[in-house]
């Protein structure tokens, strides 16, 4: 009697071919994207989305062509922050054109499609079983978005990842080795511990870890025009700084970014900073953007498959 592998094809269901076709559509859709960078952490609330948007803005200001995919389908925030809530989606000849911020960053966020008052639901076959399908459905949705929207010829596509160390690894697995990772932490031992876990998990795979950014590294006080401490470790600042290395963040630090209430206000009202202001926070973000760019370029120069320079657009 024949075995499974003796039979060519699947009798007509075509499921394997469709899954392969999805992969091909994704690869074709991203063929013109020079760099894929996932901004993750593992920890929630550390400012991944804010950093993603403002690093994108800083790189856009350098003339690079940038797109953001808000991969946090359950808590999308890029639509509000980037000012593309309720934006128009226009069918192109084959794919969907992406909404753009005023400074020209293309953004896909479920927040453009689903009002904040509505939950984003993934249907389940039975009550109490949604956990069984959730990740599969989310990644099928991610695949559909990657394959259906016009990413075009751009320098950088940034993925704003959801929290969760295990999710970070799932995205690495799904997006493949082309995608590099930038991790975000804050100066708290709890956050560092979670990020260290993400580093350890990602280090087992082929994806490149570009480095980490320490966000909320103090706050910018406009009254005294100085950076004040935001998180105070019982061990003291020096001990906390030293603790970073033994705790496992053995990847490059691309910079520290203080918290700025003004930046937060901009995010809430959907006003992306077209030009980063001359403040310590603006300079810090600009510095991290340059470090990121340098890191990506060093990746490119090391890769025989990506000899082109980043092109202003």
């Amino acid at each position, binding site marked *: 009697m024949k075995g499974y592998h003796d039979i060519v094809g699947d009798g007509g*269901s075509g*499921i394997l071919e469709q899954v392969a076709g*999805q992969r091909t559509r994704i690869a074709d859709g991203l063929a013109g994207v020079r760099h894929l960078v996932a901004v993750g952490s593992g920890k929630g609330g550390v400012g991944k989305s804010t950093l993603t948007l403002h690093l994108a803005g800083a790189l856009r200001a350098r003339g690079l062509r940038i797109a953001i995919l808000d991969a946090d389908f359950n808590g999308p925030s890029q639509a509000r922050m980037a000012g593309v809530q309720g934006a128009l*989606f*226009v069918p192109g000849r084959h794919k969907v054109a992406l909404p753009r911020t005023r400074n020209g960053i293309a953004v896909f966020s479920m927040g453009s*499609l689903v009002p904040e008052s509505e939950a984003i639901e993934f*249907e389940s*076959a039975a009550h109490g079983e949604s956990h069984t*399908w959730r990740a599969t459905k989310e990644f099928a949705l991610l695949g559909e978005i990657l394959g259906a929207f016009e990413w075009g010829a751009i320098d950088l596509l940034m993925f704003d990842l959801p929290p969760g160390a295990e999710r970070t690894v799932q995205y690495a697995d799904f997006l493949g080795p082309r995608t590099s990772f930038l991790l975000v932490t804050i100066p708290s031992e709890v956050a560092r511990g979670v990020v260290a876990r993400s580093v350890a998990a990602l280090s087992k795979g082929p994806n490149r870890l570009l480095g980490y950014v320490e966000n909320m590294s103090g706050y910018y006080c406009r009254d005294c025009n100085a950076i004040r401490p935001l998180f105070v470790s019982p061990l003291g600042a020096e001990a906390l700084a030293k603790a970073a290395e033994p705790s496992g963040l053995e990847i490059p630090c691309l910079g520290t970014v203080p918290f700025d209430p003004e930046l937060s206000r901009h995010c809430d009202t959907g006003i992306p900073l077209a030009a980063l202001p001359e403040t310590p926070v603006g300079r810090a973000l600009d510095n991290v953007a340059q470090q990121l760019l340098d890191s990506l370029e060093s990746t490119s120069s090391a890769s025989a498959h990506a000899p082109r320079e980043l092109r202003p657009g």
Partner: protein
Amino acid sequence: MKFLCVPCDTPMKLQTVGPPEGGSLSVVYSCPECGYEMAMLTNAYETQIVQSLGVRVGPDIGGGASTRLRAEGASAGLAEASAEAGAAEPTKCPFPAMIPATEGARSGQADEPVPVRWTSGAEARLANIPAFVRPMARTGIERFARERGALEVDEQILDAAREFFGM
């Protein structure tokens, strides 16, 4: 999953896929040698395993034997999306049910806007995009057309919208 006719030692071929009913699919296979038919009846969990992958069971022959897998909870949304697309082929997208507010907003308007026609070319472009984006895209494009005094959406309007929004 493959099916083998044991007496003939021949792979069976998919014949028809019944529409989802109660979260179950009826998939009929037959043996090309002896003509013996058998049906695979899925439970809701098995249906959802494949549905979660965003694929369809069966040959793509324009909605005949081809059936898009879907769970009970998504049925209404899918039906709306298919009708909305104006196409006989069932939608390929399993996610339109995630966008409840958009449809509600379209039908719940107190002052019905002036109807806008879609040319076949523009409709084809709309049908080519994921179903979960389609209702919002249609609403937005029609508004864009009305604001310019157009009562028909054609491909020029679509291109004008792209140009206008800097896409």
